[in-house]
C-alpha cells in the first residue's frame, strides 16, 4: 500500500461505473437478449388452485398444435430429475421431498405442473392455454393459523404436520431480567412482500448430447450455488455443469439457489438435446417466484422505569410457503433473527422461540435484509416502551445503545460488538432531524388539525459481521476468494466470486485493484459470473459481503501478483524488490520518477522468458477471511405528514446517519442506501403480496402490487460517520441496511403523527391509516 501515490488512489472517489458503458447504450446482455442456434422456448403450465390432487393432465390438443415440440410433465422427468430436498439433513428440521414439476399434488397457486416446449414463445403460450389439468381440490392452508390447525390437511404426505421446525433458546439470565420488571408487549404482523427485480427469472439450458456438457445461462445471483444444485438434481458431474450469468436485472435475494424451474428446464434440454429458453413474465414472477417477510413476531421487553431494557422475550412464527428454495432449510431464518434481535443495544437477556410452517403459498425466498423483522419489532417496541413509560423515544434509545467506551463487548447472542458508532449516529440523527424544533412545529400543526410525526430507527447490519457471527448461528460460510492475473500488456484481470446485478462490482473491485497495483483504472477488468472461471462461493452476491470480502480478496490477490512483478522486475533491473514501486503502470525505484520500466515490459519478459521468480504465470489466488468488526449501522430518521381526510402518508423528510467504514465509491454506496430505503418505504406503505383465505393469490400484476414510484420516494439525506479502522480492509456492506431500517422509521413516524397509536401491521395504506385515526 505504501507504494501507491495519492494521485492513483481510485478508492474513495465516485468514479464513473464501468457497467454504464453498456447499460446506457442498450448493449447490456440480459438473459432474454440471448438467442442460441436451434433454441426452443419453454412456458410452464401452472396450478390455478392452491391445494389439490392432480387427477389428470390433458396434453393431446396442445401437443398437436403446429410448432409445439413437447409437453413435459412430472412423469417425463422421473429418473431425469432426482427428488429435491434440503441437503444435507439438518437436525430437527422436517425435510419435504418434492419434484421439479408437481406430480401427485399441487401446493400453491402457480405450482409448475407441465412445461410446454415450442418453436416460439407465442406458440408455447398458445399451447399452454390448451393444456388442461384436472384437480381434486383439498382444503387450503392459507396462514400460520391454518397451519397450526391440525384439522387441515398436511402439505406433504411424508411429514405428519405443517410444522417444519421449532426452537426454544435462552440467552443470558432471562428469569432474573423479567423478575419484577415492567413488561411492555407488542405483536408485529408485517405482510408478505415480493422482491420484484425489474428483470423476471429465466434461463437458457444448453445440453450438448455429444459432449454430455450442460451449460445453463441463468439470471442468478449465485452461479456456483445453482451449479451445485443442478449437479445434484440432475446427477450431472460437476465438471459437466457450467453456469454462466449474463447481465442480471436485479435479484434482491429472489435469484438465489436452485429453483425448481431451473432443474426442469435443464432436464428438458438434456432430453431434447437442444437449447431451451424460459423467461417468465411479470404475472408468473409475482405468482410463482418467491416472496418474503410475513413473520408474526410477539415480543415483550422487561424494562426499568427509566427505560433500561433488561431483557427481551421474542416468539417468531414464520410461514415459508409450500416448497423450500434449495439449499435453504426451513430453519434458516431463525438463527439470524435470534442473533440480531438485541441489535445496537446492550440487552443482557433474550428468550427466543421460533416455529416454522408450511402453507399453500409461493416459496419464502431470502429478501434484502432477511432478518429485518428484528429491527422492525425492536424499534417499534422501543417507541412503545417510551409511550408506556412516558419517556422520549430518543432517551430510551440513548439509555440502551452501545457506547464507544463499552466496546469491544459481546451481544448476549454471541457476536462481538466492536467498532460500531451506534450512539454517535443516534445523536447526530437527532441533531440533523431538528428534534426540538420539530416537536414545537408538531404541537403547532396539531392545533391546526395537521398530523405530522417524526420517527427513528437504529440498527446494525452484519456486513459481513465479525468472525464469530456465523458460529453464533451454528453455521459457517466459506471465506471469499479471488484470482488476479497480470496480462501480457500490463493490464490486470481480477476474477471475483461475486455475481453482481446492479451493485457495480466491476467498478468498485477495479478501484481497489488498480489502487493496489498502481495502474490506471481502465487497465483493470473484473471477471464474474461463469463457474468455469470464477472461484467457488455458494452465495455469490448476497449478505452484504462484497464490500469487505470481495474487495479484500481482490486486494490480496492483486497484492500477491504485484509481489511477483516486483520480484521479476528486481531481477531485470538488478534492484531489491523492496526498493521498487509501481506508479502509473511503471515499475521504478522508489521516489525516482525518471527511472524504471513500463509494467508491460515486465509482464512481457515474464510471459516470454520465465525469469527467476516466475511461477506458472503472473497469477495468484487469494482468500479473504472475516476481519474483526464487520458491522455497518446507524440511525434513520423519518418525518411524515398524514392527511387526516384521506389517510395518505407523505414522507416529508428522510435522513440517514450511518457508518460503513471507508467508502470505495461514495456514489455507489449512496445508491445502495437510497435503493434499500425505497424498498423499505414500499414495505411500510404500499406493497402487499396478498392471499385470500383459500390461498388464492391476489397481487399478480403491478396494478395490484404497488412498487414505489418516484412520487413516493423522497430525497434521502445521507451523512457518513468515520472512525478508526479495525483492519486494513475497512469497507463494509450497505446493501441491506436501508430496507431493514426504513420500515420501522416510517412506522414510528406515522405512529407519532397519530398521537402514539400502536401499529402492528403493514403496509400502512390510506385505508389502514384511516382505521387507525378512527381508533
Amino acid at each position, binding site marked *: 500500500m505504501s507504494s501507491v501515490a495519492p494521485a492513483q488512489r481510485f478508492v474513495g472517489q465516485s468514479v*464513473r461505473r464501468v457497467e454504464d458503458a453498456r447499460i446506457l447504450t442498450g448493449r447490456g446482455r440480459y438473459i*432474454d437478449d440471448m438467442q442460441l442456434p436451434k433454441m426452443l422456448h419453454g412456458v410452464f403450465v401452472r396450478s390455478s388452485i392452491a391445494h389439490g390432487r392432480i387427477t389428470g393432465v390433458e396434453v393431446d390438443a396442445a401437443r398437436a398444435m403446429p410448432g409445439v415440440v413437447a409437453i413435459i410433465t412430472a412423469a417425463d422427468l422421473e429418473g431425469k430429475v432426482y427428488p429435491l430436498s434440503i441437503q444435507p439433513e439438518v437436525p430437527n428440521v422436517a425435510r419435504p421431498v418434492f419434484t421439479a414439476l408437481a406430480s401427485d399434488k399441487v401446493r400453491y397457486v402457480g405450482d409448475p405442473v407441465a412445461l410446454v416446449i415450442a418453436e416460439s414463445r*407465442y406458440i408455447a403460450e398458445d399451447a399452454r392455454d390448451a393444456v388442461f389439468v384436472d384437480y381434486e381440490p383439498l382444503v387450503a392452508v392459507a396462514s400460520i393459523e391454518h397451519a397450526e390447525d391440525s384439522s387441515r390437511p398436511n402439505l406433504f404426505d411424508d411429514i405428519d404436520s405443517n410444522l417444519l421446525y421449532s426452537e426454544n433458546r435462552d440467552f443470558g439470565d432471562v428469569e432474573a431480567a423479567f423478575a419484577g420488571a415492567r413488561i411492555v408487549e407488542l405483536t408485529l404482523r408485517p405482510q408478505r412482500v415480493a422482491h420484484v427485480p*425489474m428483470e423476471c427469472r429465466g434461463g437458457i439450458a444448453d445440453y450438448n448430447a455429444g459432449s454430455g456438457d450442460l451449460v445453463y445461462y441463468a439470471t442468478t445471483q449465485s452461479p456456483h450455488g445453482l451449479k451445485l444444485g443442478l449437479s445434484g438434481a440432475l446427477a450431472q458431474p460437476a465438471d459437466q455443469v457450467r453456469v454462466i450469468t449474463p447481465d442480471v436485472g*436485479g435479484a434482491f435475494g429472489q435469484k438465489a439457489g436452485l429453483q425448481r424451474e431451473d432443474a426442469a428446464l435443464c432436464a428438458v434440454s438434456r432430453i431434447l438435446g437442444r437449447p431451451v429458453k424460459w423467461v417468465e413474465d*411479470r404475472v408468473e414472477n409475482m405468482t410463482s417466484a418467491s416472496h418474503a417477510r410475513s413473520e408474526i413476531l410477539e415480543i415483550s421487553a422487561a424494562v426499568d422505569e427509566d427505560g433500561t431494557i433488561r431483557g427481551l422475550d421474542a416468539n417468531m412464527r414464520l410461514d415459508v410457503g409450500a416448497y423450500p428454495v434449495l439449499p435453504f432449510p426451513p430453519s434458516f431464518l431463525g438463527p439470524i433473527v435470534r442473533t440480531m434481535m438485541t441489535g445496537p443495544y446492550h440487552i443482557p437477556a433474550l428468550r427466543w422461540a421460533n416455529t416454522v410452517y408450511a402453507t399453500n403459498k409461493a416459496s419464502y425466498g431470502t429478501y434484502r435484509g432477511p432478518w429485518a423483522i428484528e429491527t422492525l419489532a425492536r424499534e417499534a417496541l422501543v417507541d412503545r416502551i417510551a409511550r408506556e413509560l412516558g419517556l422520549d423515544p430518543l432517551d430510551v434509545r440513548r439509555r440502551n445503545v452501545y457506547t464507544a467506551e463499552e466496546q469491544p463487548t459481546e451481544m448476549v447472542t454471541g457476536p462481538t460488538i466492536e467498532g460500531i458508532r451506534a450512539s454517535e449516529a443516534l445523536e447526530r440523527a437527532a441533531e440533523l432531524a431538528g428534534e426540538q424544533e420539530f416537536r414545537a412545529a408538531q404541537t403547532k400543526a396539531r392545533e391546526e388539525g395537521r398530523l405530522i410525526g417524526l420517527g427513528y430507527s437504529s440498527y446494525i447490519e452484519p456486513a459481513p459481521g465479525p468472525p464469530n457471527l456465523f458460529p453464533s448461528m451454528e453455521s459457517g460460510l466459506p471465506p471469499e476468494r479471488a484470482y488476479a492475473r497480470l496480462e501480457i500488456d500490463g493490464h490486470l484481470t481480477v476474477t471475483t466470486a461475486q455475481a453482481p446485478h446492479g451493485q457495480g462490482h466491476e467498478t468498485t473491485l477495479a478501484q481497489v485493484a488498480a489502487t493496489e497495483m498502481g495502474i490506471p483504472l481502465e487497465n483493470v477488468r473484473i471477471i464474474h459470473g461463469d463457474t468455469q472461471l470464477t472461484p467457488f462461493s455458494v452465495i455469490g452476491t448476497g449478505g452484504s459481503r462484497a464490500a469487505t470480502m470481495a474487495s479484500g480478496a481482490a486486494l490480496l490477490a492483486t497484492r500477491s501478483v504485484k509481489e511477483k512483478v516486483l520480484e521479476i522486475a528486481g531481477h531485470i533491473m538488478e534492484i531489491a524488490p523492496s526498493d521498487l514501486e509501481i506508479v502509473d503502470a511503471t515499475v521504478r525505484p522508489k521516489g525516482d520518477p525518471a527511472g524504471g520500466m513500463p509494467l508491460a515490459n515486465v509482464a512481457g519478459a515474464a510471459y516470454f522468458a520465465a525469469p527467476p521468480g516466475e511461477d506458472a504465470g503472473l497469477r495468484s489466488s487469494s482468500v479473504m477471511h472475516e476481519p474483526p468488526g464487520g458491522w455497518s449501522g446507524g440511525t434513520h430518521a423519518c418525518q411524515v405528514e398524514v392527511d387526516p381526510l384521506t389517510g395518505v402518508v407523505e414522507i416529508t423528510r428522510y435522513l440517514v446517519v450511518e457508518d460503513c467504514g471507508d467508502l470505495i465509491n461514495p456514489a455507489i454506496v449512496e*445508491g445502495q442506501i437510497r435503493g434499500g430505503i425505497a424498498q423499505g418505504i414500499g414495505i411500510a406503505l404500499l406493497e402487499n403480496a396478498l392471499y385470500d383465505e383459500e390461498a388464492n393469490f391476489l397481487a399478480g400484476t403491478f396494478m395490484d402490487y404497488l*412498487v414505489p414510484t418516484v412520487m413516493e420516494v423522497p*430525497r434521502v439525506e445521507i451523512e457518513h460517520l468515520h472512525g478508526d479502522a479495525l483492519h486494513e480492509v475497512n469497507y463494509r456492506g450497505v446493501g441491506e441496511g436501508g430496507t431493514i431500517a426504513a420500515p420501522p422509521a416510517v412506522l414510528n413516524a406515522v405512529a407519532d403523527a397519530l398521537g402514539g397509536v400502536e401499529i402492528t401491521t403493514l403496509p400502512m395504506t390510506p385505508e389502514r391509516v384511516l382505521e387507525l385515526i378512527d381508533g
Partner: protein
Amino acid sequence: MSIEVTLTVNGVTRTASVEARRTLADFLREDLELTGTHLGCEHGVCGACTVTVNGASARSCLMLAVQADGADVRTIEGLLEPDGSLGVLQQACADSHAFQCGFCTPGFLMTATELLAENATPTEDDVREAISGNLCRCTGYESIVQAVMLAAERGA
C-alpha cells in the same frame, strides 16, 4: 396472418412481414435484434419497454408492430451521437450514477428523451412527474432525477 410493415427505427427504414399479434417490443427485440428495449411487466405498468413513436413515449409491450407502420420509432440504441459517443442524456446518467442493474434504463432514457424534447428547462418536479410512470427497483430514483436535470442543464 402476416402483414407487411415499413417503419423508421433509429433513422433506418425497415420493412418486415410480421404477425398481426406481434408486439412492437418483440418486433424490435427479436426481429430487428435491438435488445436494448426491455420487457419488465408486459402489462404496460413498469415502463421498461418505453420507446418513442413519432416523438411520443409509448409502451412497446402494449403496442403491436403493425400499429407502428409508417412511424418513426426511436429506441435506446438511437441515443448515441453520430460519432458513436454517448448522447448528452446518457453522459449525464453516467456522471450521476443514475442506474444500477440497468434493466429499467431504456424506459427511463426514452421517457426523459421525450420530456427534454418538449421542455428544455424542466424543474425537478417536472422531471419527477415525467418519470412517475417508470419503475426502478434499485436506485430510489434520486440519481435518475439528478441525471435528467443535469442533461437539461447541459442542453440535451
